[in-house]
């Protein structure tokens, strides 16, 4: 009689030859998967030992407790026995174990469920990606078309949206954003001033820091930084709101009510940002200049009077108005990106997460691209 025994932390499993063709699997002690699961590989090795085994039986008299970990072992063993044409006699197992074994076998594996989908070649990938871009471009055009129609109706005073929603959005992207916009604008002013100061002090021209900050903030940085904050703050919120409405079927409900989502959801959102962005930009310009003045007065020892006189000299209405115009355009882009990505969102929570990320990325890319385009155009027009 040949016996091999495997000790594990709690339960034990041992294999024993009753005769040449019969293997008895002896399960003893408590088998809980928190501790350990019997090794199916070990059992398979045991089955391969010559002379060939024709029958597997169990001795569970010493089994003190079990859970589905043990069932998993038994199912694997039974599968193996089935493929090797070995008889599997589970009569000696406790009733509960036998029932779970039967349950695991009750529904046979669906045919072909394990065959992985055929792997696509790189050409197919390229094709799919191209088609995907084509489709998303189409979606974008549809979105743009619907939005244009919606604003057309708005211009004729026939758009269906709630005034209270518009006010709410104006508060959300206007007044509520003032804190973070002032913090960032102040810091940008400080950074611009430091950047300039290092170079300008070499020429004893520290006073021109005021010019640098004034022009930098009003012409470029005020609008750009505000737009980037709004992309992360409001654009992302728009995408998440609209994406969630897709998940909860609220978009469908609107459509079947005969209200176009573009009018009801997009118009007030876009309008709110377009109205608030110039105000936020103007405010950012002002706070940025204060940031510059802070550096000028405390580090460069300029008197506040001198600093602001120099700032006033450097300020140019064209720059300020140009900056506000850019800010308005950026606001429209951020709102568009948010609404578009929310509208394109899938209907699961992870899809809404993706849509939100996409909204921020799209908005920032569009804002920076627009900034480049403006720099080129303004230069061309000599503004």
């Amino acid at each position: 009689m040949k016996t091999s025994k495997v000790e594990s932390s709690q339960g034990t499993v041992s294999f024993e030859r009753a005769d040449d063709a019969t293997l008895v699997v002896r399960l003893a002690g408590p088998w809980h998967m928190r501790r350990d699961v019997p090794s199916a590989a070990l059992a398979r090795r045991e089955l391969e030992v010559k002379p060939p085994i024709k029958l597997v039986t169990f001795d569970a008299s010493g089994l003190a407790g079990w859970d589905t970990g043990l069932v998993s072992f038994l199912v694997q063993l039974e599968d193996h026995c089935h493929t090797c044409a070995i008889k599997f006699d589970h009569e000696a197992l406790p009733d509960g174990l036998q029932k779970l074994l039967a349950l695991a076998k009750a529904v046979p594996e669906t045919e072909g469920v394990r065959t992985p989908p055929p792997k696509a070649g790189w050409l197919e990938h390229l094709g799919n990606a191209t088609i995907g871009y084509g489709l998303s471009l189409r979606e974008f055009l549809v979105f743009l078309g619907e939005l244009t129609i919606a604003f057309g109706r708005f211009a004729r005073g026939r758009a269906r949206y709630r005034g209270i929603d518009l006010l709410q959005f104006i508060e959300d992207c206007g007044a509520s954003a003032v804190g973070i916009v002032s913090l960032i604008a102040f810091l940008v002013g400080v950074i611009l001033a430091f950047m300039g100061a290092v170079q300008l002090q070499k020429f004893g021209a520290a006073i021109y820091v005021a010019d640098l900050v004034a022009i930098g903030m009003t012409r470029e940085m005020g609008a750009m930084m505000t737009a980037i904050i709004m992309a992360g703050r409001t654009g992302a919120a728009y995408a998440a709101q609209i994406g969630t409405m897709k998940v909860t079927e609220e978009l469908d409900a609107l459509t079947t009510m005969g209200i176009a989502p573009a009018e009801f959801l997009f118009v007030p959102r876009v309008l709110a940002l377009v109205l608030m962005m110039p105000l936020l930009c103007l405010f950012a310009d002002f706070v940025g200049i204060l940031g510059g003045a802070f550096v000028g007065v405390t580090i460069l020892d300029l008197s506040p009077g001198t600093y602001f006189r120099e700032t006033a000299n450097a300020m140019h209405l064209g720059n300020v108005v140009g900056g506000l115009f850019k800010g308005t355009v950026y606001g429209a882009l951020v709102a568009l990106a948010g609404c578009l990505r929310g509208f394109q969102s899938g209907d699961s929570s992870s899809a809404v997460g993706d849509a939100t990320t996409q909204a921020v990325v799209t908005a920032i890319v569009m804002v920076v691209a627009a900034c480049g385009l403006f720099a080129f155009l303004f230069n061309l027009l000599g503004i």
Partner: protein
Amino acid sequence: MAEAALQNETRDQPAHIEVRDLTMAYGSFVLMHDLNFTVRRSEIFVIMGGSGSGKSTLLRHLIGLKEPAVGEIFYSGVNFTRADPEERELLVKRFGVLYQSGALFSSMTLAENIVLPLTEFTDLTRGQAGEVASLKLALVGLKGFEDYYPSEISGGMQKRAGLARAMALDPEILFFDEPSAGLDPISSHLLDDLILAIRESLGATVVIVSHELASIFAIADNSVFLDTERRTITASGNPRDLLMNSKDPKVHRFLTRGKEGDGSPMNYG
């Protein structure tokens, strides 16, 4: 007995919805093909089928949220599928839809949810619309909940509020997507009673997507069964008749909760 009488009445009613040779597909994947059925006026019509059989997708086709790959849908003889946008909007305005999750607008109170379609599509003043909204809420047993937000009430109440909104404009056809999903048996029973009451008082045609047997037997006049494997309608008629007379083993199993002709060992003892 009153039910049976009503059933015979609806059988003679003119067709309200006709679905002809409808094929539903996602891209090249055909979900269901060659669907043909007629819903008569004031009938309670149930679309039955197992999970994933495309019941809800069929509903989305009926209300115009998805376009048929093949086939057409007619409302009172008007071709909905080929209708131009204005015609379509007119038809859609006669629908009321209760979505699976209620789909109440989460940023609005219950009253505002119901007032929205009223102010958009009627000449009611805001005050009048508010009064009508209160009435609709009272009809579904939510009197006094006007100023609650959807997130502040239970799932069953959200469904009822969704029904109140669906009924806002006294629609000719009410669509329900799994009305009993997520409801306890009592709330589900109350909802059934509510549906019956609405049909009787307003004469609305009701189309329900459901796999809730108790509710199907309680309220359906007529039904179709979508077979997941054969991808088409394999049985139609009154569910009670189907239970008695259907020869299709799958329909039978569905209507008896798999208790007959199924060897599944789902009894754990």
